[in-house]
């Protein structure tokens, strides 16, 4: 098995070259408590900062999605103390003013693009912050959609913006106010509340297994 040497918070370990950082930590003897969540790239628990030997650049990745490299020295960033505002979504308007009043620090963005460069999800973070600065909530919501809220952007931001918290505010404003409402959904909720299906459902609940099997086999499958 091909092995590589990595340093975990200053201690060197020899680990198989094919492992992700997360599995390498476990191979090295860690039973993870912090810095481990879904293990599949969705939850943002395992943000990791590392360098490789001889390279001055600081690199980042999700531990569960990044393969170890020889000479990598790393630390997990399992929590980041980012600014987050509380708000009542029902009382907001989907406007530039809302975003700027809740997170005025977005105006401090200096356009350094560091957030975009560190994003493990390849999101154009700086561009969505630019959207916030001009009140384009729909585009902000779209561009930031794949965010796993790992905190790496905020950790590197010289303007001390917590980009991902701005992004979820924008997505909720979009989803609630700007996206067109589903009329068929409102209609169906009304029908259910009026009891339109009650009798039919109860009849279904009373049916024997054989009757249900026949109905199931005869279902019309939508093409």
């Amino acid at each position, binding site marked *: 098995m091909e092995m590589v040497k990595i340093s975990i918070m200053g201690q060197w370990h020899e680990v198989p070259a094919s492992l992700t950082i997360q599995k390498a930590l476990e191979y090295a003897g*860690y039973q993870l408590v912090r810095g481990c969540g879904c293990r599949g790239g969705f939850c943002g628990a395992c943000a990791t900062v590392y360098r490789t030997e001889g390279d001055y650049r600081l690199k980042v990745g999700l531990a569960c999605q990044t393969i170890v490299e020889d000479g990598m020295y790393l630390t997990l960033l399992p929590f980041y103390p980012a600014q987050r505002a509380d708000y009542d979504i029902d009382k907001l308007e989907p406007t530039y003013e809302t975003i700027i009043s809740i997170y005025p620090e977005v105006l401090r963005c200096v356009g350094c693009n560091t957030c975009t460069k560190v994003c493990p999800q390849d999101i154009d973070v700086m561009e969505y912050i630019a959207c916030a600065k001009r009140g384009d909530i729909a585009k902000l919501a779209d561009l930031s959609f*794949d965010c796993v809220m790992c905190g790496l952007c905020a950790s590197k931001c010289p303007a001390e913006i917590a980009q991902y918290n701005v992004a979820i505010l924008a997505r909720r404003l979009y989803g609630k106010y700007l996206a067109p409402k589903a009329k068929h959904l409102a209609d169906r909720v009304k029908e259910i509340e009026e009891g339109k299906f009650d009798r039919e459902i109860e009849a279904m609940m009373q049916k024997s297994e054989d009757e249900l099997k026949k109905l199931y086999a005869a279902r019309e499958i939508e093409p």
Partner: protein
Amino acid sequence: MSYPESMLASIKKVEETRKKRLEERIPLLSPEEKDKLLHGFHPDYNPKGKRPVRVGPNQGDQMPNELVDLLEAYPRIDPDRFDLSSFDYDVDVLVIGGGGAGAAAALLAQENGANVLLVTKLRLGDANTMMAQGGIQAADKPHDSPVIHYLDVVGGGHYYNVPELVRALVMDAPKVIRWHEELGVMYDKEPDGTMITIHGGGTSKKRMHAARDYTGAEIMRTLRDEVRNRKIPYLEFSPVVELLLDDQKRCGGAIIYNLDTKEYFKIRAKAVIIATGGFGRLHIQGFPTTNHYGATADGLVLAYRVGCKLLYMDAVQYHPTGVAYPEQIVGLLITEKVRGLGAQLVNREGNQFIYPLETRDVVASGIIRECTERNLGVETPTGMKGVWLDSPMIEIINGPGTIQRMLPAMYRQFHNFGIDMAKLPILTYPTLHYQNGGIVINEWGETTVPGLFVAGEASGGVHGRNRLMGNSLLDVNVFGRRAGMRAAEYAKKNKVGKLSLDHVKRYSEELKAAGIERKRVAPMLLPDYRRPEVLRKLEGTYGLGIE
């Protein structure tokens, strides 16, 4: 990294048959054919995988060995060392678990006037809900109805479902989607607001709603944001290690364990909601799993010790399409939406062998048969076998760019390892995905123990012996909301009596009387993936799970 030569040779055959397969439709299996396939190849029918549990309310029932190990384990704490005359927290409703069910329960309990505390083992939102990609079912289109949804659910569940629970599931479904819309969940919609809905395995109507392929993540992060906005207190890295019962055998609180400081804290609560999820991380029969790191069946152990019965624990859902290559992400989920959008399952020779949208148990069994008895699987360099999921068909059918637009998470997952799934098929094999059974509840999430409620994957009966895609995100929302509402009502009417851990003592005595040695403790809290070489060096500990 892309595919090795040996696998590329098979991919060539897949490409050659693609044109023919675009026209080809494999017929659905008859009930008899399905039965034969399931009995022959589904892991649930492997007698070596289970054994009867020797103690507790389900004594004598067959369950997976790995779960029986935990039900037959001893408590982590010494009940005599806890002074229950005072408490660190005193609340109306205690919610255990910070996933979709827990967050929904906490929100609704608070809305209904309760003073709520949520405790969770990892972070708020660290749960399988966050990982659910494919979608959420709701019969909200004019040509569909909750009644048709009902029939799909019970047929998929092989008619073992509890009717009252299914009614709650399908009738609340549109309400849940509407609730999400109001909270700002970004569902995929047409420009006029119509929900974009597709099929899932076992659906007769297109009722799968999605938020790209981050559906669960989008729902979870929105609910989490709302829990924070409403200032519901929550404690992270604080799993429950035992429930508390009062002198009238009502549930009235819990003992939690702070994983950082190693302290125990005592909570008194008028009502308790278990929303701890399932048992994927027990790796039943050695299968890899799609599940979150925390899915270790803690809630089942807690509820079992206070006398709750478990239902259909031997029915395990193996998702047909887990990643089989590359090795680094083996076991992770390839959402059913990939098949929903037109990707077919094909063997080494490039031939289809099963209709891709049969129910999950049937598709999984078909893949296992292809890789074992028929020996038509594709072998990876590490010796694992799998079959192709022909993802490039999605682009042929729906147009170029569809995968990046509709399946960004999936695309990224493979792209990270040098595989472009829009151009090359991906290799899959079944992976442990869902606990179909769980703690017995009624349609309000109430258990047989007064004051104790359960919602989500920890409960059993909603899905019978096989859950359909898109009904678990629905389940956590429907029953999380119901349990939250009902627990808040219950808390208004009931006072907590004198609390104790006597039931824990009795359980230990029962274990001893059954001749069970003190080899393990439970709940497990977290899996342990350290190597045996490392564990052997941990002098002074027992390797009994997280300390």
